């Protein structure tokens, strides 16, 4: 049998050679021929027909295991779908059985052998899931890949699976945007690749082989109902998955790892594999957790308790002579006089403790030919901001059935999430008010913010009728109680697959998947708040996004051992079809105080409707070869056809090559190195290019919705210019890496260096509006990332009872952007602009730059002062900071002692700028402690005048000076300096952040089996106590993990901008996990 088989495979080999084969493969072909000849000579020996099966320790068949006659390079076979095999060997031979993920096992040949393979837990030969769900041995990979298993993920479980990756993997950067209930997190692998604001640079998520949408969006827009990203919090949609359902998460960091996924994978891929039932008895698992979260008072901004609300008004007589300075209380700001109190801790009072219940019940089981997993979960969090919260139900079914050569798989998941949000930093677009959080931080500490209603229940107005309602600033309690913002998301995902194991070395698989959700963002703004005039009688809006993603893929995989060579060929196709339907509706100016669509006339109702659709076809292939399990080569190629690019440019091909060499094996074999010291060493390298398409309809210019202008119907061009000659965007990357394992694999080291060049980017930058457009789709700009990653892990202590596993990872990325479109000197991300700082990339500067102003200085660095002796500043934005850390990482420790498992995860960061917009705002309003500190101190400003002569001026707070030709009290000059001049050196509010954080501390106690046996019906039981964010050491005033505009902002994102957000939370949880 093996003889004919080999002949057939050689046919395949020739076929492959015609495609792309290297010389090494051709030499393998020759060697194999020689080997066939020699085995023919051996036929005269006495032969034994061996048949048997290979199973794992659970008794599950192991298909695809290789069974080889020891010492022969040619005589071998591969187990079938049920683990079965048969082979003919000379009597007295030994069989070597191996399979990735299992320890190699040898058995003596006999007529019938049943072999049990033990799982190989050794780090380097562990099986990992790679692109398209293909399991490979870690050591064969030519690129970096990290896998995190359920057990690790559960150690610091939150509602958002992304958060569980934080600090654990080098090169993975997770930013929790705020402490608000239901708010999202952003995840970036190795720096962003696209500078366009519509692209969020986050990796592609694949759940059980199907692409899973992880967008973050405010459904609605500023022009329609005032909704802005920077005004509230948003979820990222991976939060719809119940983290308890996840078996493992695999991070494919670079394009080489993800090249097979094509267009959407340029930012890397995160593969999520959900749980399956195992063969054996049915198990029921119940886990429940109660979490209490709070805001660390130390992380809240410091407030002054010296000067009350109001301002010091310089007064003059009828002849304009200065007559003194008097206190005036007609101001929201706290620039008033010194005051003895009472003082109110408005910020501390505002935030609640947050309590969360998190429970999951699952049932799983399986037989020899089938398995299933069914779960249901409920998550209910009350936010730290009053009236906010997040609730989620999630259900999942996974099942598999084998029949003949076929394996049928199906899964279905449904979730419903509800979030009660609030306005945060900014107000509604077009309103003069502020968001709730802005008001919290800037409310005068001499007023009790809790008073927001009069005794009769009507709205308390700080200035009575002195201001019109629309000119006031809302009390935060009013906002959270009266400006309701909430969303509901219903999501269904499902997939169906058929796999056929046609021969032991060839399987094919077809899969169909759907991801469908409907999210409705609703606003209910009660009358009387600070909103534009037309909304003074209230405003309601409901904005629906319906997202549907349908995909199919078909994969054929052939794998065969030829002597020392193992060859694998995978070919496949895929199709993607993504459709969104957006429906917005709003109403205002209600006839009576009842807010509903029915209760207003038709001219006070608006709706809008939009549809997008994009499709993609991919054809891909991967050829892998390894020699003696020590030299590995992988070549991939993919061609995509996208609907979104111009027809002539819509087909694009991209290749990748990666390889690895385990260089230690020959050295160990030759006795040059001691296996006990250096057990394993591998170098790897990869090169890849991936293409990226664009959003639907950018190849043509749309029209605005038609309007009526004095009886004339008309519609003009939309403000984005379409481009009919767009080309696909490309990312080219290289990576080299080194993996070493010492002391019998007790200590591992993994190092990677990579470069990433994303060029021909499809951008819609703001352009000269003399083009007739605000945005213009073009190909331009390179985002260049390079970086290093280092992971050191091992088991420092391993005794019978005590094990200490530790892992330290460090990474640093340097991103910059070059080759700007003509005329463009900066790229900005919309909405992310606070004070004098913007998220922006200045030409040839840091990708994660902060654009701001600088004081003008002479060559010696002296500040150039104006006529009054105050600093002058640059007219244009310049790069004043870089939000990217110099390096960052995590240190994860697990100690196991008998039934106790103790975990401690530290995260650290060195460098990376944060703009403290909260402090900026609180200084402008005179509430920050900083403002209280300088307020009554002499101010000295030194520098040079416009002639370059030295100037030094000092202003005492209680003396009168002539300033701008007018007499003023010093205190008002000092205030003017700090509120109008100080912030034009944007760096004054920027901190280069260093941080060490104890992210998680947990203790789990597994109840001993003996104790469980007494109970009888319990199989496993454990109790966990965990704490999150317990310690933070930083030079930043507050928590530096900030993204003021949430997780979904594209381009360089809003990470590193702190502006009146919901503060980060610390928490304790208590959980119980029972398995029946």
């Amino acid at each position, binding site marked *: 049998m093996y003889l004919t088989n080999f002949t057939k495979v050689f046919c395949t080999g020739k076929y492959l050679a015609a495609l792309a084969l290297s010389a090494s493969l051709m030499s393998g072909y020759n060697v194999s021929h020689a080997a066939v000849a020699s085995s023919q000579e051996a036929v005269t020996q006495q032969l034994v027909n061996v048949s048997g099966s290979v199973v794992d320790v659970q008794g599950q068949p192991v298909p695809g295991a290789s069974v080889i006659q020891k010492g022969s390079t040619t005589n071998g076979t591969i187990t079938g779908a049920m683990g079965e095999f048969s082979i003919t060997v000379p009597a007295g031979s030994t069989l070597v059985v191996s399979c990735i993920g299992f320890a190699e096992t040898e058995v003596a040949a006999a007529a019938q052998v049943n072999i049990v393979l033990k799982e190989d837990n050794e780090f380097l030969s562990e099986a990992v899931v790679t692109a398209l769900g293909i399991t490979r041995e870690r050591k064969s990979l030519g690129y970096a890949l990290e896998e995190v298993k359920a057990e690790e993920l559960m150690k610091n479980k939150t509602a958002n699976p992304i958060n569980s990756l934080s600090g654990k993997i080098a090169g993975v950067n997770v930013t929790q945007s705020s402490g608000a209930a239901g708010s999202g997190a952003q995840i970036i692998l190795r720096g962003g690749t696209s500078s366009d604001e519509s692209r969020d640079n986050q990796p592609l998520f694949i759940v059980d082989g199907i692409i899973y949408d992880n967008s973050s969006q405010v459904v609605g827009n500023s022009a329609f109902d005032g909704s802005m990203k920077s005004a509230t919090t948003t979820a990222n949609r991976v939060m719809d998955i119940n983290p308890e359902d996840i078996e493992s998460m695999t991070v494919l960091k670079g394009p080489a790892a993800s090249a097979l996924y094509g267009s959407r994978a340029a930012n890397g891929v995160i593969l999520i594999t959900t749980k399956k039932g195992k063969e054996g008895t049915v198990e029921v698992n119940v886990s429940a957790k109660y979490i209490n979260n709070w805001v660390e008072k130390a992380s809240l901004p410091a407030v002054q308790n010296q000067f009350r609300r109001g301002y010091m*008004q310089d007064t003059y007589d009828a002849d304009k002579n200065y007559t003194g300075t008097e206190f005036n209380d007609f101001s929201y700001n706290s620039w008033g006089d010194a005051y003895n109190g009472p003082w109110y801790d408005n910020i501390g009072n505002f935030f609640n403790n947050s309590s969360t219940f998190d429970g999951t019940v699952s049932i799983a089981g399986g037989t020899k030919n089938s398995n299933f997993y069914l779960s249901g979960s409920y998550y209910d969090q009350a936010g730290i901001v009053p009236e906010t919260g997040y609730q989620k139900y999630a259900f999942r079914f996974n099942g598999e059935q084998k029949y003949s050569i076929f394996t049928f798989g199906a899964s279905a998941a449904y979730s419903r999430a509800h979030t009660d949000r609030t306005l945060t930093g900014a107000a509604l677009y077009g309103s003069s008010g502020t968001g709730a959080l802005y008001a919290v931080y800037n409310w005068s500490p001499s007023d009790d913010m809790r008073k927001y209603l009069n005794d009769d229940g009507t709205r308390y107005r700080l200035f009575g009728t002195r201001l019109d309602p629309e000119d006031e600033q809302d009390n935060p309690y009013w906002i959270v109680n009266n400006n309701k913002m909430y969303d509901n998301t219903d999501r269904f995902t499902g997939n169906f697959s058929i796999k056929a194991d046609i021969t032991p070395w060839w399987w094919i698989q077809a899969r169909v998947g759907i991801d469908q959700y409907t999210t409705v963002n609703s606003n209910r703004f009660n009358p009387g708040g600070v909103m534009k005039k037309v909304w003074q009688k209230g405003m309601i809006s409901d904005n629906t996004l319906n997202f549907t993603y349908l995909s199919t893929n078909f994969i054929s995989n052939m794998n065969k051992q030829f002597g020392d060579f193992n060859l694998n060929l995978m070919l496949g196709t895929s199709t993607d079809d993504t459709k969104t339907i957006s429906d917005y509706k709003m109403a205002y100016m209600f006839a009576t105080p009842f807010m509903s669509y029915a209760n207003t006339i038709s001219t006070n109702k608006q709706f809008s409707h939009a549809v997008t659709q994009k499709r993609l076809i991919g054809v891909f292939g991967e050829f892998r070869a390894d020699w003696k399990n020590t030299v590995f080569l992988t070549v991939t190629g993919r061609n995509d056809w996208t609907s979104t690019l111009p027809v002539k440019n819509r087909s694009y091909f991209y290749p990748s090559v990666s390889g690895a060499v385990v260089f230690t094996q020959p050295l160990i074999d030759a006795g040059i190195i001691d296996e006990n010291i250096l057990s394993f060493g591998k170098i790897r390298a990869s090169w890849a290019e991936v293409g990226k398409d664009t959003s639907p309809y950018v190849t*043509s210019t749309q029209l605005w919705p038609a309007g009526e202008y004095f009886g*004339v119907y008309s519609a003009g061009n939309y403000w984005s210019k379409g481009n009919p*000659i767009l080309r696909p965007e490309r990312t080219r990357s290289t990576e080299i890496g080194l993996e070493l394992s010492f002391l019998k694999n007790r200590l591992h080291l993994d190092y990677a260096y990579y470069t990433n060049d994303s060029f021909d980017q499809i951008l819609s930058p703001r352009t*000269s509006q003399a083009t007739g*457009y*605000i945005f213009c789709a073009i190909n331009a700009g390179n985002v260049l990332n390079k970086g290093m990653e280092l992971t050191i892990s091992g088991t420092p202590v391993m005794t019978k009872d005590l094990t200490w596993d530790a892992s330290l990872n460090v990474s640093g990325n340097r991103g910059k952007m070059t080759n700007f479109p003509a005329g463009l000197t900066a790229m900005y991300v919309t909405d992310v602009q606070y004070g004098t700082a913007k998220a922006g990339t200045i030409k040839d500067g840091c990708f994660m730059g902060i654009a701001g102003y600088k004081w003008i200085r002479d060559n010696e660095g002296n500040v150039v002062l104006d006529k009054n002796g105050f600093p002058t500043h640059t007219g*244009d934005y310049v790069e004043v900071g870089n939000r990217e850390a110099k390096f960052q990482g995590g240190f994860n420790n697990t100690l196991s002692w008998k039934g106790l498992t103790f975990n401690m995860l530290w995260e650290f960061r060195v460098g990376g700028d944060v703009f403290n917009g909260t402090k900026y705002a609180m200084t402008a309003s005179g509430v920050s402690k900083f403002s209280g500190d300088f307020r009554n101190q002499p101010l000295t400003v030194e520098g040079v005048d416009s002639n370059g002569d030295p100037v030094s001026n000092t202003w005492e707070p209680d003396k009168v000076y002539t300033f701008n030709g007018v007499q003023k009290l010093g205190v008002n000059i000092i205030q003017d300096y700090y509120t109008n001049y100080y912030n034009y050196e944007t760096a004054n509010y920027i901190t280069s952040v260093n941080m060490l954080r104890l992210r998680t501390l947990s203790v789990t106690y597994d109840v001993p089996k003996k104790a469980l046996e007494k109970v009888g019906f319990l199989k496993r039981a454990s109790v966990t106590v965990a704490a999150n964010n317990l310690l933070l050491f930083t030079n930043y005033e507050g928590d530096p993990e900030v993204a003021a505009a949430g997780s979904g902002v594209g381009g360089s994102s809003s990470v590193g901008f702190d502006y009146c957000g919901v503060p980060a939370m610390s928490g304790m949880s208590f959980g119980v996990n029972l398995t029946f």
Partner: protein
Amino acid sequence: MKTINKILLCGLAVMGVTLSSCSNWLDVNVDPENPTAETSTYDGLLGNVEFYTNSAHQFADWRTGQTTGDWTGCSGRGNYANSSFWLPANAWVTTSYQWWFVGAYVNIPQLIEKAEAAEAWHYAAVARVIKAYGFMLMTDLYGEMPYEEAAGTDPSITAPKYATGKTIFLGCLNDIDDALKLFDKEQSTAAASLAVGDWWMNGDIGMWKKFANFLKARWILKLSKKQAGSYLDGKYDEDAILAALNASFGEGENSVIHHLDGNSTTHDHLGWDEPVDYSPLYSVCGMNWGYLATKMLYDNLTNFDGLGVEDPRADHMLPWREATSPRTDGITLDPVTGTKWTENGVWYRGLGVDLSQPIFSQNGPLRSYKEDDGAWYVDTQTEARKGDTLYVEMTSSSKGYAGNKDLLYRRGGKAISGSFYTRVSSPTYLGTYAEACFIKAEVLFKKHDQTGAFNAYKEGVKASIALMNEQLKLWVAEDITLNDCPSFKPMDQADIDNYINNGIGTAADLTLARILTQKRLHLMHSIEVWNDMRRYDFSEDMFLNWHIAADYYVNTSALKAIPEGKHLRRWRQCSHELNYNSENLKAIGLEVPGADTTLDQWNNADDVWTIPVWWDSDQQ
């Protein structure tokens, strides 16, 4: 083996079928909900072109108007109060540019192309007039601007090259001449009637031709600093002005947009989100708080050139306030404050802020507040500021969009009248017979035709008053209760006659200053006032009661932007040009006399605001 072959064959067959149908399957990149530029039609494009062009113009009219001395704002009102003492702000300079290019002009090249293809010459003509109207605004404001390369269809051009002011200026005059020829060309019978797409003149070709000629006269007049010669060469051409005026508006003929206080569901697309039938001046002024008349305006309206007769327009331009409790002494001129009161003692008229005193650097002027049961008051301890209650802000309200009961704005139950030009339904003067008269008066005056000049001047004042009275009658007809408010009550013919006969001087004592000052009273909130002031180098002899505001001399930022001895003569380019078109902007600096090209970007110079635009310069 056979099974494998079958599966392979099936697989290949499926792939074959799939791939062959792929091409169709991928053809979904046409938005099913939104039409594209290819589908637009010339008649369907014009309506919004007219809207955005007018708004762009009016926003610039308002913003430049705040720098020419008639209006100011309360302390803390921000940029458009500070404008009155020449503290330039980058916030001035974006909106008009954006609304012109992104709202309006982007559609004009395709409108012309589509209209000409359909032989719809009237549309092609109107498009040229509007193109010229918009680009003339751009060069008035910024001096230079992308022109030939602006709004091109080449997708690779994201940074269009600049043209000089002269190129744009002559291009605009050329477009007007071309348009005048096209108006006379017979349209294809299949072409849409101009009335279908045109709401400025409702398809009236005659009025369009008069308007085009009017613009021609207005623009050639701007060349008054240039040598005499043909306007086609950019020279000052008096004969061409008079010829154009002859072909322009006659008595009673005006191009006026009558805005509506409706609640149109069509809102602008460029971020203001307001109904398109509003007066743009209501958006920038009328609906906002804190804008005040100046003493210059007050004096020119109440005692023109010291002639002692109050202009009947004074009651309509100067805002009124409803007194907390009616005056019962019957006095109509308060002996202490000098405020004018209505006979029934209900309303009093605000005074003008005296900008000859540095009021802003002394925390003034302040806005008046109204407590529920108290009097109007100003929130201050400073004696000098308490008198600021005499100023009345120009705020008004709307019935349609704001859901108010009338056009009056109320604080604590008491009303404020607003001002004639800045209400929601105020008219926009595109071109008026009155302005044509003042242009004629200036030209004849310079030709030493004193009588001709006076007749034109007097005709202009009469026409201005008549045009205002038309609107007043309309408002009162729509809402008779407004007749009780002196700001709305139509003018009496006797008052008009008295003013014309005794309040504006005679042919014998006519001065250019009277012509130019009457012209600016007519063109309230118009860029033409700034244009005239630039033409006459801000001469105090030419503009009655005009002085640079005292606060200018004590404000370091203002002095830095406009060094003493210089004048506000242009706008800086907006950040979109500085950031996204910097190289081309830099390049045009070489052709701008006065540009400091040693700088990295000449247009970023602190005092770029003082560089004359081409027609204002001595560059030929």
